């Protein structure tokens, strides 16, 4: 209260200069009244103490309105407008706001109707109104507002009041950040939200609906965590209604998360069908083509491996990731062109058996062999058809006497091992037994493996919202939108897994770089810094994207991270055995 008072005290000299000149004459009148604010009364303004907050808000509104009105739009305020009783600040502000925008009034109950402005004629189309339209289309930036949302949603469907408090405080937050809200501050009831959660809502402002959607998602997740399945059920239906009102990234993310929640509530877990693995391969291929994440992963990992292989005559790469082998042509080419000629290249792929496509690993080998022949690199291929958790060093045909330099590569694979207790430790000890020169790991930069469901849900919501946002840029440039849709399905399956599954089924157990670092260091590895070449390659890759202005490459402690605006999304790191 005091702060607002001081704010209004500061504002007076500003508006006094721009506004009417007659105000100055009023300053000497020293009218005082019991209910009036005394300090202002000394200056000659009559403001009721009870109205102070209101007056302060109107001043802010007027300030913004004057700031945004176009050229010479306010000169009429000093020349043509007649100001009645300007010492009554409250009413004077009403009339000023009416002058600037006859369509908008802040307080429907105000007594300004008794004040008539004689000049109603040519008002410049106020930019308050046009910015009102802007905030209606002000959609996807609401994603970034996710950071400002309080942790636990207080929204329970039985009580609308806590909801309003949150909404009201949001409006206030928006106000202070300089935005002009179209909705009058006092009317919370315009969106017709009533205790009945299943009633369709009439939504006025899509930005507010976006915030409401996020709140509902989080409330539903909380209900699921507390095992309140009826409330959760009602909220899930509400989410689907709200999601329709959104556009673009927010709608897709909300739909996938709602699907995950629904599966969790009704216990319909996605079945592992027989065509699953080849389908997910296809999806991953489209994901590779659409957005830079996999390309970033491949190029940075290749650069680290290339530098580790400097000077070696025989090299051996052990790859945990398989998946069509698109990482390796670029590495083979780089090795072919290195000074001194290419080394002898051995590649071992490890992948789980796929019932629908038993020859998958073999086919990859044939293609790579063909390619390597074309560019003149001596290439040997072998594969191990085992699930990663069952890996033994004896399966890998390590030839210690052959003076081979070994590299181990894992792109988005290690996190799956966390679903089985003890698997990651076993694999890391196997890796140590191989004695590689370098181990490259690329993982998602997010913690989706916490013990509490609600925390995982919130983290995943933030992460995938950012990810889908980044894909939106490509929607405008890709002539083949099928790729984009497939990429979104690819990500949607990950979301479904994180939200709906548990136990050994939940394989998308992403962990942040800091956690992987701790794990690797306790397993006896030390970090290898990725050099500036990797950084430059990544930067060039990003520069080539026509839809990707928001991507950023960052270097943290020798690891490279690719992010969208301020949020890092994937991280590449390299390791070697500690001395």
């Amino acid at each position, binding site marked *: 209260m005091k702060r607002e008072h001081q704010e209004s005290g500061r504002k007076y000299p500003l508006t006094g200069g721009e506004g009417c000149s007659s105000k100055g004459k009023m300053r000497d009148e020293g009218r005082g009244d019991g209910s009036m604010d005394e300090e202002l009364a000394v200056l000659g303004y009559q403001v009721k103490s009870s109205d102070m907050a209101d007056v302060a808000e109107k001043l802010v509104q007027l300030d913004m309105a004057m700031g945004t009105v176009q050229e010479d739009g306010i000169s009429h305020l000093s020349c043509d407008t007649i100001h009645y009783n300007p010492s009554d600040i409250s009413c004077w502000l009403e009339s000023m706001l009416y002058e600037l925008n006859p369509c908008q009034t802040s307080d429907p109950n105000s007594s300004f109707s008794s004040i008539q402005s004689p000049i109603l004629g040519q008002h410049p189309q106020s930019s308050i109104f046009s910015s009102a339209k802007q905030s209606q289309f002000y959609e996807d930036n609401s994603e970034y507002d996710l950071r400002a949302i309080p942790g636990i949603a207080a929204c329970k469907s039985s009580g609308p009041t806590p909801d309003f408090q949150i909404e009201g405080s949001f409006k206030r937050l928006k106000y202070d950040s300089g935005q002009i809200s179209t909705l009058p501050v006092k009317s919370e009831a315009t969106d017709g939200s009533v205790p009945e959660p299943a009633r369709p809502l009439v939504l006025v402002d899509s930005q507010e609906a976006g915030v409401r959607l996020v709140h509902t998602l989080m409330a539903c997740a909380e209900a699921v965590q507390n095992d309140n399945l009826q409330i959760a059920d009602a909220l899930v239906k509400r989410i689907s209604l709200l999601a329709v009102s959104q556009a673009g990234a927010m709608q897709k993310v909300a739909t996938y998360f709602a699907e995950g929640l629904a599966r969790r509530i009704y216990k319909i877990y996605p079945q592992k069908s027989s065509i699953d693995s*080849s389908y997910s*391969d*296809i999806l991953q*291929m489209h994901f*590779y*083509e*659409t957005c*830079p994440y996999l390309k970033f992963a491949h*190029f940075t990992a290749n650069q680290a491996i290339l530098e580790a292989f400097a000077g070696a005559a025989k090299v051996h790469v052990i790859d945990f990731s398989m998946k*069509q*082998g*698109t990482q390796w*042509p*670029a590495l*083979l*080419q*780089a090795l*072919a*062109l290195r*000074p001194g*000629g290419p080394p002898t290249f051995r590649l071992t792929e490890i992948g789980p058996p796929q019932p629908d496509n038993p020859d998958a690993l073999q*086919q990859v080998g*044939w*293609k*790579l062999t*063909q*390619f390597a022949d*074309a*560019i*003149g690199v001596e290439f040997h291929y072998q594969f191990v058809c085992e699930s990663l958790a069952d890996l033994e060093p004896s399966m890998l045909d390590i030839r210690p006497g052959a003076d081979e330099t070994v590299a181990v590569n894992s792109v988005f694979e290690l996190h799956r091992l966390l679903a089985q207790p003890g698997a990651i430790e076993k694999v890391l000890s196997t890796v140590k037994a191989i004695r590689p020169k370098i181990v490259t790991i690329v993982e998602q930069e997010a913690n989706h493996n916490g013990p509490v469901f609600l925390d995982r849900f919130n983290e995943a919501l933030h992460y995938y919202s950012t990810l889908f946002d980044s894909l939106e840029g*490509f929607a*405008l*440039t*890709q*002539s*083949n939108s099928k*790729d984009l849709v497939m990429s979104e399905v690819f990500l949607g399956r990950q979301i479904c897994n994180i939200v709906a599954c548990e136990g050994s089924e939940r394989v998308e157990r992403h962990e942040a770089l800091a956690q992987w670092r701790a794990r690797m260091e306790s397993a006896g590895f030390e970090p290898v810094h990725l050099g500036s070449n990797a*950084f*430059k*390659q*990544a*930067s*060039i*890759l*990003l*520069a*080539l*994207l*026509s*839809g*990707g*202005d928001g*991507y*950023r*490459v*960052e*270097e943290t402690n020798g690891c490279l991270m690719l992010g969208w605006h301020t949020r890092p999304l994937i991280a590449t790191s390299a390791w070697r055995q500690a001395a």
Partner: protein
Amino acid sequence: MAEEQKKLKFCINDHRDVLVEILKRLDARSLGVAACVCRLWCSITRNDALWEHLCFRHVSPPPSGVRTVVVALGGYKRLYMVCVKPVLSRLAGAKIGSDGRGTGGGGNGGDSDLTRRVWRRHGAQMSLSLLCVDCYERLGGRLGDASASSLMFLCEPVNF
């Protein structure tokens, strides 16, 4: 009089090496135009050596040993049309700052020439890598999808 007759008798088509030297300095579009002049010019411009020069003209020193690889991947003309041209034009448009952002903030003064050369070199190497991925994908077809589209992101945006 005799000198004028000498001049009139000079025909560039008789001096193929000079012609090649001149054509080497053209840009891709002009090379295409030149190919339409006559059969001789057409065959010369189709020669991969010209395109090799075009690809790595701005890269100094020119990478050695690349030729066998590039020929295996489809030739310099293909490399240029599919990769180098879009890569270099994108890089020229986007000024790359040292902080890894793709756009905005040009290089400063005297460094910019060096920076541009460095980026062109990396750009050329990147083009080669991308071409490799593209060729690999075209090998033997993929899981039912005949078109390789890993280079789609290099295509110009289509305005609807």
